[in-house]
């Protein structure tokens, strides 16, 4: 059994295709593990075998973040306002992966409406980190990241708005890819910030990320007007050296504010990149330090608009006993939304309100332009930009819940790429002791490239991954 659990998703797909492994047995093995989950990573688990499937991912179970609509299966985006909601249709990306043969194993816990960096904002309780269950898994795709790291699923789907795939991947010691904006259809994803949200894979290794991602992209989805044709097929990475690859390290994102242990692991990885033939030089992203401020205008503004639909009329929770319509709206939203969601709705509504629009929203959009220009200048000289994924290792539950700004700073290194719409991958690059002492915890290395450079990004990440040889086994026992 442990041999089967040790198989990567790509390994399992290959074994099933060769007739060496039974897909039904594999599904049942993971289904039992997911159902007995002690991390609160799952909010729903399949109660029986899946329908027969065919395709390149045949029989390899897939865990899906709660915010993807799955027909007839609870899709709550971590919110009590959607408790028990079973949508009448599935997200395009879920349909594509199902059509490729991957059966739905379960839905994973997340920060409510993907707003958070620790998965403590879930309406269904926090997720625990399998490396140390007193610590957070990161967020908002914390359930997907913890489930992959603890081998409760071979792989998982997450979403990233300002770091929500990359940061939990880093804190759980796995791989997470945030795609180019528009590469993956957003149809059927319960929206947080529409100009930033992207679906992506959370996997044990880079090969699995490429395998899953390759089935998520393709022809543009007519049901998502912002989706794009991906210009080329995604290939499985095979690169073992980095000869001629130019890596830029932005001084603004790889120094101040980063824990010393994280910085040490990051710099050791840069050394490895050099030993594989890459050139590594400093570069500048002068506006990157302002990305977080711009993000915390733009994302809440878009969220305040997107979340207007939760009004107790068409689906989800409705407060009982309201005498008239406005009272029904305001009480439903008071009872149904958690504290962080209310905070962001308030922030976004404030930023969009009369008299403040130009000072906040208009300025933030201009900062976004400057950040995209910074990256364009960097990519004229470099193939990739590298940073630590998160400023620290996994922190203790409750450590940052009282201070919203301290929580937001987790996204310091990931938000700039989101604003620029470019792809970025986080791979585990080693372990570091937390600042207060204790067992060493995973550190993520982030590599970002220009739009649609996913194949090159996955190739470079694969070469680094082979050289790093990270051991992803956690102390978690089922």
């Amino acid at each position: 059994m442990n041999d089967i659990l040790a198989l990567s998703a790509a390994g399992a797909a290959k074994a099933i295709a060769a007739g060496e492994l039974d897909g039904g047995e594999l599904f049942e093995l993971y289904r039992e593990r997911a159902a007995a989950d002690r991390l609160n990573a799952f909010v729903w688990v399949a109660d029986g075998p899946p329908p027969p499937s065919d395709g390149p991912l045949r029989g390899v179970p897939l865990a899906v973040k709660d915010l993807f609509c799955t027909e007839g299966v609870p899709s709550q985006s971590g919110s009590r306002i959607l408790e028990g909601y079973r949508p009448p249709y599935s997200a395009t990306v879920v349909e594509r992966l199902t059509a490729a043969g991957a059966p739905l194993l379960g839905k994973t816990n997340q920060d409510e409406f993907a707003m958070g960096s620790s998965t403590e904002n879930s309406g269904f309780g926090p997720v625990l980190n399998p490396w140390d269950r007193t610590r957070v898994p990161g967020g908002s795709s914390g359930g997907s990241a913890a489930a992959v790291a603890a081998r409760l699923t071979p792989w998982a789907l997450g979403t990233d708005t300002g770091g929500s795939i990359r940061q939990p991947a880093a804190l759980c010691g796995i791989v997470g890819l945030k795609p180019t904006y528009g590469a993956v259809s957003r149809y059927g994803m319960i929206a947080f910030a529409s100009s930033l949200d992207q679906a992506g894979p959370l996997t044990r290794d880079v090969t699995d990320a490429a395998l899953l991602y390759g089935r998520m992209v393709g022809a543009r989805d007519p049901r998502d007007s912002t989706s794009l044709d991906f210009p080329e097929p995604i290939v499985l990475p095979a690169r073992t050296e980095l000869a001629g690859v130019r890596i830029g390290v932005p001084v603004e994102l790889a120094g101040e504010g980063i824990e010393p242990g994280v910085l040490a692991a990051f710099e050791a990885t840069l050394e490895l990149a050099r030993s594989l033939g890459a050139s590594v030089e400093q570069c500048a992203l002068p506006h990157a330090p302002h990305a977080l401020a711009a993000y915390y205008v733009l994302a809440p503004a878009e969220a305040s608009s997107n979340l207007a639909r939760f009004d107790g009329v068409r689906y989800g929770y409705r407060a009982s006993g309201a005498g008239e319509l406005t009272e029904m709206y305001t009480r439903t939203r008071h009872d149904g939304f958690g504290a962080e969601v209310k905070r962001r709705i308030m922030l976004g509504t404030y930023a969009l309100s009369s008299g403040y629009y130009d000072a906040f929203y208009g300025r933030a959009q201009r900062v976004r332009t400057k950040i995209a220009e910074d990256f364009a200048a960097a990519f004229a000289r470099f193939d990739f930009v590298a940073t630590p994924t998160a400023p620290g290792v996994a922190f203790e539950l409750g450590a940052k819940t009282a201070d919203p700004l301290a929580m937001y700073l987790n996204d310091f290194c990931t938000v700039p790429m989101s604003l620029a719409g470019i792809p970025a991958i986080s791979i585990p690059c080693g372990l570091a002791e937390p600042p207060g002492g204790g067992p060493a915890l995973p550190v993520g290395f982030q590599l970002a490239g220009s739009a649609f450079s996913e194949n090159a990004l996955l190739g470079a990440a694969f070469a680094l991954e082979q050289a790093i040889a990270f051991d992803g086994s956690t102390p978690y026992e089922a």
Partner: protein
Amino acid sequence: MIEREEVRHVARLARLQLSEEEIDRMAVELAGVLEHIATIATLDLDAVEPTSHVVAVENALREDEPQPSLSRERALESAPSVADDGFAVPSPQA
């Protein structure tokens, strides 16, 4: 610091009921975040075009032809309250 009355006004715009305690907390927390956000006020951005969208997509329209969509029954099956084949809500009086 944000005035409590301003917090109440924004909450009304957002159709969000807040308790007195939530209003107090929100006034402090929003002020903290807005203080951080205010750092972008120091940048010279007058000559910069705003970016609303990172990829250039123009007029992503389909042909105006009827396509299959949800049936009335499917659309209503998750509604908290249904009447006369429609969504039922309390009267918007007062």
